[in-house]
């Protein structure tokens, strides 16, 4: 198997945590992702393990999110924005990142924190490699602009 589970565990965990903002649940979903990945051996030979891992994780997070929405919200639960404050530690850059759309933030997380190759990202988002490169470039340009603006 070309994907090293040890290397990917933390990355998938970050991805899940970013999606659902719950540490225990994120770890459960991470483990569920790998269990499903290991049990579906036919995907291993297709050379798209990383793509497959993120797809499973994304689907599981979406399911978890839908289930969570149906649960009754308790008083001490805060919305996702507060969690973002917790995740984003660099205030200036964090503010710039928060101005991005959810999809753009996710792309930044995957590309620069999880170091997912552009080829895999393009497959995940269903666009060509060139379009993905252009999207990332545009996001970075906006990020730099906002970042410099907030610093100045």
């Amino acid at each position, binding site marked *: 198997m070309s994907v090293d589970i040890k290397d990917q565990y933390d990355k998938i965990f970050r991805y899940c945590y970013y999606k659902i903002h719950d540490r225990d649940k994120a770890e459960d979903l991470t483990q569920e992702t790998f269990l499903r990945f290991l049990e579906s051996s036919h995907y291993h030979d297709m050379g798209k393990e990383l793509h497959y891992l993120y797809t499973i994780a994304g689907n599981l997070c979406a399911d978890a999110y839908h289930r969570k929405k149906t649960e009754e919200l308790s008083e001490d639960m805060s919305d996702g924005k507060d969690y973002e404050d917790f995740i984003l530690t660099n205030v200036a*850059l964090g503010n710039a990142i928060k101005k991005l759309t959810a999809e753009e933030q996710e792309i*930044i997380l995957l590309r620069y*924190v999880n170091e997912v190759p552009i080829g895999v990202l393009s497959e995940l988002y269903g666009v060509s490699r060139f379009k993905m490169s252009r999207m990332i470039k545009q996001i970075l340009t906006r990020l730099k602009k906002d970042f410099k603006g907030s610093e100045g």
Partner: protein
Amino acid sequence: MNKRMKKAVQESFRFPETKHKYEFLMQAEVISAQEMQRKKRIPVVFRLSAAAAACGLALGAWAHLGSRSKLSENDFRDEPAIVTTMIGGNGESQPVTTAIGNGETAGATTVNVSAVTTVRTGTAKTTTVTSGSALTALGAKSRSTTASRSDHSRVTANTNSDTVTVEYTITNEEKTYYMKHLGTFASAFVMGGNAIPIASAAEYKLPYTRMYPNESDIFADIESNAETVDINRDGFFNMRDCYDLYCYSNHYQVSDTVADKCRKYGVSKIDDEENDTPPWLSYTELIRYFLIKEGAKAEFFSTESYPYRDTLTDTYAPFASDQFVSAVFSESDHLMAGYPLISAAYRSGLIDLDVNADGLFDINDYIDYYVCTTNSNKSNQNSGDFIPWERPEATVQRCNELRSKAEAITRDNWLENYFVWCLLEYTPFRSEYAEASYYNSIIPEKYARYYSPERYFEEYCETTGIEEYLFTFNTQKFNNCFDEYCKDVAAGRRSAPDINLDGVIDRSDYEASDIYFGDILNGRNASQSELPSRVWNNITSNCDFNNNGTSGDVYDIMITQMYVLINTGESSSSSGGSYNYDSNMGILLDINNPRSGDVNGDGEVDMADAVLIMQYLANPDKYQLTDSAMYNADVEGECDGLNTSDASAIQRRLLNL
């Protein structure tokens, strides 16, 4: 994106630590290995079937291509498809043989050189065949024809003074016809080739056997006399030949062919006083050779299987087959050759090795089985000094069922070994399985002294040569984990290596780790160690500093010692203790010291050398050093021989202390 920006983005995100990563990774490793094993089994059947189907299709396509449709009278392909012209050096036409597209052959045809003109234009190759005596002579219609996209070749050779030129033209039709054949053949070849590696991968080898010292020579003789050992002359050497030889040797009725052959090679019978038979031509050796070569199969142990059923038909046949099967069992028992039967039984679900019924076949099942077996041992029960670690009743029952089933299959008592082999075949190998310390965290301390589950792993490692692997020290791995550990301690994420639990990091921690290292290399347990049990158990259970799942292994010991050296007053450097191991390596290598410290002779002085010195000091019989290694290792003191201070000196040098 520049590096600064990338780093800033990376650092902008902060995520919590995972809680159960390592537990999960251990389980995932097992699941992954079992999945791979399952995956490996299924495709053999499918791919072999696919290969057979592909070959069938290819053959069908080949046969179909042979029956081409009959050409009509006006079809272009009715023209001569291949024109071969031989032109003599003197310009005269020579008789040639010309093949015609529809299969006819015309011999002794005279072709005028002017009749064939070749025109090559760019990449398109065109041969214009002009009508003339050549075509007329071949019986073709007299008309001018252009066969476009044909291939044309010319071969010129000098024969004495004459130049002979041979030209031939193959039309596109012919090329397509042959290319289809070639394509079909290539497809079949590739399909068949794909199946071959799978089949060879499925070949089974025994983990190890208990052969007699000179038996390999005997087996070599058997292999070099393949024709002779085919006792019944059916063209194969198999268990039936062993049985025939057994029957002849034991005065049972055999066929004339077998009797003739046995007499020819002087095979002796059991009561014969004179014995001229070569040592390799005995049924015992043939059985042993066959069991090792092929592995045990269920049919070898069944009196109903075909070799025993068909060979003899007289009244003594049942006795012969019974006794022969007993002989096969006996040799299989001695060789420990029954493992393939256990492995096959596990795969087919005949036996369940998941004795604790947690849904996973892993090391815990082995421990439960081992403990149950030890508990049921009569000599243990009768000895007053045995306190059994009681396992759940259901687990004990499953272990008993497993044992009785396995014994019925192999009729031997090697299930503990076979269990270990199965575990190693179906789950990943972990070196700590062969270490007593691994089980200390699993078996409660009060029972630990009565159980040694590591012994079967040790035995396996020793007999299969894995022992070296167990104590291999990887410098790069150590370097990474040490740096990471120091950073974690500095950040307060992990505790300092206070292994003797006295509340301070000092020289006594270093010495305690040294004693512990000697203990694990010499197989000593907590009760046999100089260390207090509290300290010894702390090292075996709470000191997994490199997070590899094993507390107190060689990496943990080295991390402890290096950390102590950094944090105690033994430093002569004002650097304040650099944690970067790599950056200090250059300083050490620059030292022009004839006693280099390169103990293992790999050209570098690193932690592996310090480990080797400690291993040598702990167990010199096991870890022997050459004279040059001893010389280079003695880096501390004035040639006072090897001692712990030499290892410590290398460690301090590596840390630039």
